[in-house]
């Protein structure tokens, strides 16, 4: 709101003042400073994403009036338009549903107080060392009157929040280990205990921010200008030029960085489409035996373990993120390892539509409905295009991605043939998915570029949305099942 309430005359004055101070770059319409010796913060990076050229994103948002109005609403609610929304604007329908849910979770009626909500967001994002979300919510947290002391670490936060740390840890990395005992410990802790409604709210927030952290890394979201690491006061080295001239990726070098690879992968889309067609047709002829189906799931599960990310491009978080969580060594461990056997989670026995929804809606009214819409939106979103091809039924591909993610969390669909995954998702794509879902902080630009080379950025963002929602649902299912078990 702070930005929104300047009276009209003032704005004009300001504009006037600003234009006197700055000149506008003819290339990218960005302001650059005249030599007046005023310290003006300058964004370190261009555009909302490190992976996607800024022009692409702005192109989308400028054209569509619907996106425009969503942006207006978001701006009115938060006083800013964050980079996440900008990137999501490739898919305005989804963005709308996403923003409504997030706004409801953070601002509207709910059992938790506002600063608790942001703090839980910080905790969840910190688990994945997502400095972008942490910084954003540290600001919100302080704005709603949160105690700055809490930010020194979880030890300084109230006992009640500290207890949530365990749940946060398990949910983020190994949700299948969640049992009703964990829930019981939170609900029966004398004066620090959580109520069921509060717990549901917290769980929804935790899962929301875990998956949003995945999205943030998966799309290479850059820090907001007002946050740490988002700006610098150092003048550009050649002060007469705009940053875009120094070629930070807005155009020239970016597209031609790998001409060989492009040729090599030329037929990728066509191959994928061919396979989808084949699967569609063969399906009825060659019926795999039940045993075969079961082993396919197991194989996919084990194979997902072998997909290991080799690249170690550590990005150092500017704020000391690790102080927001304990036990930093606790990370994703592959679902089925020798030694510990966790029974497979069958969706037919506990599904979001039948069970999860009812539980959430009972304890945190309206949120069940919103999440339901958001999941459906993400799952069913399609433009019937693949790269340059039109009128393609992508449902098979989307289902494969969705189920592959659930498979990594040990969730099985009885009615799905996991052989399809192998056909449709190639290795580099699997690496990307696995990294993004299990340890998003390790996602690199190279990974982002190496899968689905011929696809458009909007399609890659679409994939990211699918990953994010599938992951959120997987975590939610485990958490809600544990709560249901506690209740019965």
């Amino acid at each position: 709101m702070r930005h929104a309430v300047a009276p009209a005359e003032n704005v004009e004055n300001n504009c006037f003042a600003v234009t006197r101070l700055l000149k506008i770059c003819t290339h990218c319409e960005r302001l650059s400073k005249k030599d007046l010796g005023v310290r003006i913060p300058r964004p370190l990076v261009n555009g909302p994403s490190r992976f996607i050229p800024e022009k692409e994103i702005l192109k989308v948002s400028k054209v569509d009036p619907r996106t425009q109005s969503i942006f207006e609403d978001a701006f009115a609610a938060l006083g800013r338009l964050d980079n996440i929304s900008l990137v999501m604007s490739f898919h305005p329908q989804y963005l709308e549903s996403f923003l409504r849910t997030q706004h409801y979770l953070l601002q509207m009626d709910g059992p938790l107080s506002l600063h608790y909500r942001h703090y839980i967001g910080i905790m969840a994002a910190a688990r994945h060392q997502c400095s972008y979300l942490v910084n954003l919510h540290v600001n919100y947290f302080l704005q709603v009157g949160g105690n700055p002391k809490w930010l020194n670490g979880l030890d300084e936060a109230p006992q009640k929040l500290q207890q949530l740390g365990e749940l946060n840890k398990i949910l983020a990395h190994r949700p299948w280990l969640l049992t009703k005992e964990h829930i019981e410990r939170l609900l029966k802790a004398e004066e620090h205990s959580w109520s069921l409604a509060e717990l549901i709210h917290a769980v929804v927030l935790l899962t929301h921010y875990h998956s949003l952290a995945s999205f943030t890394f998966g799309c290479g979201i850059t820090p907001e200008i007002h946050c740490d690491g988002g700006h610098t006061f150092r003048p550009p080295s050649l002060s007469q030029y705009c940053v875009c001239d120094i070629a930070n990726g807005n155009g020239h070098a970016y597209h031609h960085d790998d001409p060989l690879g492009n040729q090599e992968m030329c037929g990728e889309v066509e191959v994928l489409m061919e396979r989808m067609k084949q699967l569609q047709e063969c399906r009825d002829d060659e019926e795999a035996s039940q045993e075969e189906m079961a082993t396919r799931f197991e194989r996919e599960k084990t194979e997902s373990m072998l997909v290991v990310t080799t690249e170690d491009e550590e990005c150092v978080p500017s704020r000391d993120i690790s102080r927001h969580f304990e036990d930093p060594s606790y990370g994703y461990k592959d679902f089925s390892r020798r030694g510990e056997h966790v029974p497979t989670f069958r969706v037919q026995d506990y599904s979001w539509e039948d069970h999860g929804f009812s539980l959430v809606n009972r304890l945190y009214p309206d949120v069940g409905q919103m999440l339901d819409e958001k999941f459906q939106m993400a799952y069913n979103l399609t433009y019937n295009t693949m790269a340059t091809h039109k009128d393609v039924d992508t449902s098979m591909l989307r289902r494969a991605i969705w189920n592959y993610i659930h498979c990594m969390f040990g969730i099985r669909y009885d009615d799905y043939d996991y052989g399809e995954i192998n056909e449709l998702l190639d290795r580099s794509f699997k690496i990307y998915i696995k990294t993004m879902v299990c340890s998003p902080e390790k996602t690199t630009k190279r990974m982002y570029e190496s899968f689905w080379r011929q696809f458009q950025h909007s399609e890659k963002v679409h994939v990211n949305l699918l990953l994010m929602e599938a992951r959120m649902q997987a975590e939610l299912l485990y958490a809600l099942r544990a709560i249901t078990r506690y209740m019965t």
Partner: protein
Amino acid sequence: MEKMSRVTTALSSSAVSGRTMFCHLDAPANAISVCRDATQVVVAGRNIFKIYALEEEQFVEKLNLRVGRKPSLNFSCADVMWHQMEENLLATAATNGAVVTWNLGKPSRNKQDQLFTEHKRTVNKVCFHPTEVYMLLSGSQDGFMKCFDLRKKESVSTFSGQSESVRDVQFSMKDYFTFAASFENGNVQLWDIRRPDRYERMFTAHTGPVFCCDWHPDDRGWLATGGRDKMVKVWDMTTNRAKEIYCVQTIASVARVKWRPERKFHLATCSMMVDHNIYVWDVRRPFIPFATFEEHKDVTTGIVWRHQHDPHFLLSGSKDSTLYQHMFRDATRPVDKANPEGLCFGLFGDLAFAAKESLISSDANRKPYPGGDRRYPIFFFKKPDPTEQFAHVSSALSVFETDLDSNRMDWFVKTAQLYLLSGKPFAELCDHNAKVAQELKRPQVSTTWTMLRIMFSDPANLTTPGPNHNLSKLGTLPLMNSFSMKEMGSVMGTESRLDRSKGESRQDNILLEPGNPHISNNNEENEETEGSEGQAEYMFGDAELDDDDLYSMEHDNQTEEQEYTLPQEAFQLRHEIMDNPSAPEHLQQDKADSPHVSGNEAEVTCLTPIESFSLISISQPLFSPHLPASFFCPIVREMLSYYAEQGDVQMAVSVLIVLGDRIRKEIDDLTQEHWYMSYIDLLQRFELWNVSNEVIKLSTCSAITCLNQASTTLHINCSNCKRPMSNKGWICDRCHQCASVCAVCHHVVKGLFVWCQGCSHGGHLEHIMNWLKSSAHCPAGCGHLYVTRLW
């Protein structure tokens, strides 16, 4: 109660008999079905597929259909149905999308007959045609329904629901060709089996998935549906548009619904989550279940009436791995436990009481409520319906009015409005509130405020007192302390404990039990207050002259010798103060003729009448002159609890807010929250919205402050086109006009907009207020007359 006769005629040879019984299954059940002659039941689930025989006393396992070393997913059943014509034929819906039929007549161990794998997703439901032997219908998650002819290897027709998934399919009992299908998106479709190209009819039955539907066994047009929205609806399908004729609201999403045989208006439901009971409803009485079965420990997944003409036996399977047969006579009847009496207090002390007519009439000659002047007996009658099996109760409602004077709550409203809770220094707040209480003739409350001010005022303002403190009968006082005053003033304060037992009695005074105090100030000017027999007494500490105190009863240094004796007057309960105003009046007189003394250094105590006094002086203070404020906390805490227990939660909360951090830590959060909630509730009942909001704002309990953050959205409609305004406050998206225009100045109102709920005109608060000074009509000229309440 039930008619057995009809049932026995319906049953062929021997009447079914039995008792409530159960058996343990090895695994959770997903669905059950019963064979035609009601002697066997099949239980199906992910890891179980068995047939049990229903015997007189127990279930006996007849057959395990789940064979093979490592059974395939075809055995993992979402649904099962036993054919109602052919007793060897069963069909199951498998979670992997297969539809399987089983022939019990097969000689081999594996009874699997046919396997249809045409569905791509989980099959949610299978249904045999009620009269046709070879016709089977299935509904799947992939959005298709398929009709199979069991003599063929493939489906004969496929019906596309054009929707995400089919949750239930049911053949109509009476119409040969019709079946109903319910969908995840909330729709119900009616199909003709001969026309697979499009549905006959579709309507939206629920918000969210419709999990189940069931045709009425006798009435051809009735279809019951149950959904995730926790409702069971009964639709009349005979009319052109499906008409909702009954609606039952349950407490959890409805997983199954089954009409009860032989009872036209009864149906049984079970839920999918959280609630484990099975309910039988009379759809005409949707508020309370007709009968409840509470045996299961986990959600019930399958229910079926054992025999299609016998309403007394219900079978159920559950996730808790048990199979139950419920006898209707063993069901609990929630109606019997319902309390037919109701009692409610009105805001101004009126009392309404509803009870069974019989109860009231037998009491008719009893004397009415003593305070009440009149009673209005009102009787309700409902025409009894012979088919309803609810006991008929007619109730009488009596309303008692209270005596207007004795129980008035005016003091509460005035106090709430006049108290100051923040915004001024602590001492001033106390003074102000004490004055308010005084004016409302509540001296005890007033005194409490004054005492609080003394106890908790900042000791930095007070300097070291003189050395001499005299106190009388030290040892016998329950609690004593002294405080430091400014140079000249020193007081031997007497703190008496609040006697709770006295709370019930007529006098709830602050007691100084034995003896009388003797006070001397540091000028060695002794002042004595003596109570003689039959007199109560105010004892005041001496203090420096200060003008800001208007009400505390004090005397200053110049008039030390003066004696203040008050006639004995115990304070009455506050309700009776109106009748006995002498004591407060006296106080006011006192105030009038004594010079004003700073309340800071005053302590007021009320003494009980004591017959004799002895004066004892001590020269050393009992406690150190600087008593930390925390010293008083236990007493204040006790006092607050005392007030709260008395029902004066207003006092408790007000003190809590004014004292703030000084006392907060002493009282546990739950109690505080409880007080706040009660007070806010009271305030809201009296429509003191502003005060209640202030209290919420000032409270420090997180549970209370968040009340203000809830429901902060105000939805408004455009005043021109009457459509909801979506985003901006003052311009309507649809008609592009300024919506909230001030009716007086015709400018757009940005900020406080006040409007009439009657005619929806309004404008700037100031303008409307000015307007209403001169006119009683709406400024927009609509002719609406603002009488009493504008907003």
